[in-house]
């Protein structure tokens, strides 16, 4: 556990040192703030004390930003060869993967925490449904963790950061929209299968305030499979 935290701290440090963290935070808050309060179907236009608008904007912005956070995590280490230095320290492959995963999750957590003033402001304007808002945040957090896990896997597959970014985005796209579209264009079992795989369905149900164990299992599985495959591809250096 100690090793995991050491790696997490180091990665967080380099997020902030390399300005990635600030850029992502500013862009995320800028986008979500703009569409939540100022433009389009913003809160004043809708006229309800609800953060649904924010959640649906964040649903997309986080989708694009998480691959940018994860693309360098392993790809850079592989390219510069530091992975060899890292893995010959007294750490396991799993600890490295978890440490890096946690660092990105914490950064997204910080980004979400920065939107706390939205909730505060909204509570002054009207009566908010605390449970719904909490669930919305939980949904965003789970979704981000899933994409971080996918991004980490993409990053473990290549030593080129751009490839890692695009790979993460294209895998994510399936969960984000394509499965849902497919679910709509088929009928019967196939449709149900795709609906089950679609991340947006699960996200919607959580952010409406309904926490179903099936949704938790769904996100948990994506996170677990992503991390497992990342670890596997680190270990694979041994198999050739």
């Amino acid at each position, binding site marked *: 556990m*100690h*090793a995991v935290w*050491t*790696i997490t701290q*180091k990665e967080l*440090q*380099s997020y902030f*040192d*390399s300005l990635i963290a600030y850029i992502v935070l500013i862009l995320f808050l800028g986008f979500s703030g703009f569409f939540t309060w100022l433009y389009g179907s913003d809160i004043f236009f809708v006229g309800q004390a609800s953060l649904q608008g924010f959640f649906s904007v964040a649903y997309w912005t986080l989708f694009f930003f998480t691959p940018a956070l994860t693309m360098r995590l392993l790809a850079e280490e592989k390219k*510069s*060869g*530091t*992975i*060899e*230095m*890292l*893995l*010959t*320290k*007294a*750490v*396991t492959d799993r600890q490295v993967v978890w440490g890096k995963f946690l660092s990105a999750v914490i950064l997204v957590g910080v980004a979400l925490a920065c939107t706390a003033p939205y909730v505060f402001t909204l509570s002054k304007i009207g009566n908010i449904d605390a449970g719904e808002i909490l669930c919305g945040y939980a949904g965003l957090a789970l979704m981000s963790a899933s994409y971080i896990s996918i991004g980490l896997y993409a990053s473990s597959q290549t030593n080129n950061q751009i490839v890692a970014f695009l790979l993460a985005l294209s895998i994510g796209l399936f969960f984000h929209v394509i499965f849902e579209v497919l679910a709509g264009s088929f009928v019967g079992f196939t449709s149900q299968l795709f609906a089950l795989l679609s991340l947006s369905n699960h996200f919607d149900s959580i952010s409406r305030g309904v926490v179903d164990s099936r949704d938790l299992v769904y996100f948990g599985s994506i996170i677990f499979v992503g991390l497992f495959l990342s670890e596997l591809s680190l270990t694979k*250096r*041994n*198999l*050739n």
Partner: protein
Amino acid sequence: MDIHIENLTKNYGFQKAVDHISFDVKPGEVLGFLGPNGAGKSTTMKMITGYLSIGEGDVLLGGKSVRDSGDELKRHVGYLPENNPLYLDMPVIDYLGFCAALQGMNKGEIGKRIREMVRVCGLNSEKHKKIGELSKGYRQRVGLAQAMIHDPEILVLDEPTTGLDPNQIVEIRKLIRELGKEKTVVLSTHILPEVEATCDRILIINKGKIVANGTAENLRKQATGREILKLRIEDGKADDIVHELHRIKSVDIVEMVDKSMNRFEVQSNTGLSSKREIFQLCVQKGWVLSELIPLETRLEDIFRNLTMN
């Protein structure tokens, strides 16, 4: 902690990178790992440090197999990988702290140990800079510092002196010798004088196999076996001299190197020396023996003999 390597083998596809090699390194010993590019030095080192899995055979560190208890054993190993990969965006001190923490050192000890490594590796003037701003020599020192930060019992150094200037090379060699008094050190290099200067024992490997194993002196003895002398004899006719030299019993081959300067090369029969006889011959004939140089086989020649085929 000693290193015991037993029938170690590693294949990359059909190519055998390391082919059934076995050797031991004891504490207090510096082992020099020599070999041409692609001989399997780095692969062997990567297997010792647990970066690559072991194909066949085993690596035992202090009697424990790397296969079973790899992650626990890594704590006792300090490793400087080939090309010395470093996090260029990290300041030196932070980097050393990170490495120390990963090796499971206590928080209290880390600060003290970093100061010590900074002093030992001569990093004091650069310690607050980012690693990316350092010159190659200083980066190499950072690489050495991170390998030694947790005071490991085993040090594996893959080409530790590349990129250093001659003064630094001398310092680092001294440091390695110093460390080698108590620790088990394995280092690889291309620089042959370096092996003689730092290593107690030399291991030459070629195409994944060990072709020589012993001290520099031992290797020399094995390689030559015969005495070779370079002579210059004045005041005599070259042809006469050759003729007379041939008559000495212990002499096998006489070669005229330079007729006008009366220079010769004399090879004695195996196990015999002909220095005294040559001197006496000169006295007897009234020639002046102005040069007599025993030719030592250089390590370079041994290396070439063993690895060129």
